[in-house]
């Protein structure tokens, strides 16, 4: 039997600073090798914090992480020293909306990729440079030999995004974390990057967690979707299930807000209000203040979790009785 690549069990993340933020409130996730999942949610819902938890990128002194996180057999929350360094970049790699977070402005693209390969795989510099050239070719940067010697600021936006992907994949990670890597791009460039990621994911057989607020983007790149609201997954399922049979009122609202099936001249079925501030730990359904089908009880107790089959889950009182949903 294949072992899951990623297992998150009841993961919570709380920031204790000037202001307490309960950013992640009980996330459960199982991802098999080679699987692709999109986390779909609005800003502040906890998407980036979830990804950073998998890489242990959160500020240690002000962050309280609870639950269990396993990636490729390792207990991520207790990693340190060399094991943590190998985890970051060797096993799990991340790409961002702003490529300058990943790229170093003072080194050429070729040197940066080569250096990462030498560090993680202990190969010669020569071999590192050869890998760098191969990666730049695979991400379809035009004239890759010449681009090896280019600095990040000498490249256009789409090109920098490709260079960042080349760097992230150079050490053949088992898991790629993508935090809205195409949000700042023109749609014409976005689709190029999405297709590239889809192709490389297949070619390298790696698993991918792709964070986005755009349903169309999730449809293009992933097999499954987890809808996140106020630090929780409120619904998970295959892309087809989420698009065609959404069960959670928030998922339905998001689809309507994305103008899925909107009719010109008719009012949009907009969700009223705004997401909660997350200053306290949720003790009821976090969506209740905005929910059009709220019931008695929704505001006093945590809603039940209805699990249908592995990977299909809805966190709503109505989901238990499908007739009402």
């Amino acid at each position, binding site marked *: 039997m294949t072992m899951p690549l990623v297992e998150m069990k009841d993961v919570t993340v709380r920031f204790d600073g000037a202001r307490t933020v309960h950013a992640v409130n009980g996330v459960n996730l199982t991802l098999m090798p080679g699987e692709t999942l999109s986390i779909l949610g*609005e*800003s502040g819902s906890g998407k980036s914090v979830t990804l950073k938890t998998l890489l242990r990128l959160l500020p240690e002194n002000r962050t309280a992480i609870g639950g269990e996180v396993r990636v490729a057999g390792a207990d991520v929350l207790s990693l340190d020293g060399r094991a943590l360094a190998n985890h970051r970049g060797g096993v799990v790699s991340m790409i961002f909306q702003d490529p300058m977070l990943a790229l170093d402005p003072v080194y050429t693209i070729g040197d940066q990729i080569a250096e990462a390969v030498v560090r993680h795989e202990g190969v010669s510099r020569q071999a590192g440079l050869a890998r760098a050239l191969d990666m730049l070719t695979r991400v379809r940067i*035009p004239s890759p030999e010449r681009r090896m010697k280019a600095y990040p600021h000498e490249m*256009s*936006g*789409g*090109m920098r995004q490709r260079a960042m992907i080349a760097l992230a994949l150079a050490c053949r990670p088992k898991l790629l974390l993508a935090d809205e890597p195409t949000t700042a791009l*023109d*749609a*014409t*460039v*976005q*689709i*190029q990057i*999405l*297709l590239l990621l889809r192709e490389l994911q297949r070619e390298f057989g790696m698993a991918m967690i792709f964070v986005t*607020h*755009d*349903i*169309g*983007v999730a*449809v*293009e790149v992933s097999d499954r979707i987890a809808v996140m609201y106020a630090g929780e997954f409120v619904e998970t399922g*295959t*892309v*087809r299930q989420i*698009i065609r049979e959404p069960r959670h009122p928030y998922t339905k*609202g*998001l689809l*309507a*807000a*994305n*103008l*899925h099936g*909107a009719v*010109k001249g008719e*009012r*949009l*079925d*907009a*969700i*009223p209000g*705004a*997401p909660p501030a997350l200053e306290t730990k949720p003790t009821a359904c976090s969506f209740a203040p*905005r929910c059009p089908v709220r019931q008695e009880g929704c505001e006093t107790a945590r809603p039940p979790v209805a699990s249908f089959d592995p990977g299909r889950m809805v966190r709503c009182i109505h989901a238990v009785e499908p007739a009402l949903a």
Partner: protein
Amino acid sequence: MNPAPASLPETAPKPPLLSVNGLRKHFPLKGGLFGQTTGVVRAVDGVSFDVAEGETLGIVGESGCGKSTTARLLVDLITPDDGQILLESRRLGVDLDVRELRRHVQMVFQDSYASLNPRLTMEDAIAFGPRVNGMAAAKATALAHELLAKVGLEPRRFAGRYPHELSGGQRQRVNIARALAFSPKVVILDEAVSALDKSVEAQVLNLLADLKKELGLTYIFISHDLNVVRYISDRVMVMYLGEVAEIGPVETLYANPTHPYTRALLAAMPSMDPDRRTEEAPLTGDPPNPINPPSGCRFHPRCRNAESVCSAGSPGLFKLPSDRHLVACHAAIPGSGHSLAEMPA
């Protein structure tokens, strides 16, 4: 020749509310050791279009194609190098002065935070414009309260708040109220909902529709989101490197895009159907910038249908037989010499 329409309109069409003719704005490109002018950015390069009273014109195109520059020219935030702006047939600088234009044509920007003064309460921010224009303080404050209610913010709760005490969606509502304080005829919305979360964006889109109906407004709606543009617009204008590539009724444009660039833009939208995901990117590379644009049709280096006629001469906007649909592509112009074009009638 085209067959005559089956029935002619009963009345002659009204003149457009807003009309733009051959608008041009070039920015000098500074560079070199002494900051000398080393080139020119052709941000807007001969743009013409009309907007009818009560309609919504959407403007789309890749980053840098001149959408915001066009908007800023329309409200005279920058001065055109060439071209005419007419409001109700009165020409700016001739029988229409700048102050009047600015009152009738208001603008709302994307960045709701940057456009509000952090030290003004919401009622003062909204009342500011009318007061500068001579309205008495008490009357301006009453107007501010009325407008807050109109954009869905309860005056009692929100009048005394400062910008940092509001969410992004609430700030954008205040910016809309501020624009409405001048009782404008036209409101230009430049990526005005783009920074909002989807659920909040839907609320603001509903608000814009309500206000339009109630106040008889005319909108120019600039956005990179083609779903939103389709939903809100009556007509859509597609810009490419400072020029108009295609303009027409929204349904015609989305169902029958004629310019290869319009087709590419639409094909670049992510699919919402898991069984029909995009298989091939319609364009390669990044959008070019309008410094030294290509000769002839500016799209020719990226166009799959490009032929020698395309780099030789600029196609210019050509009126198609269907209603109010114009396109700048040799392949659509009879007798242009492009192999896909019809022979002249």
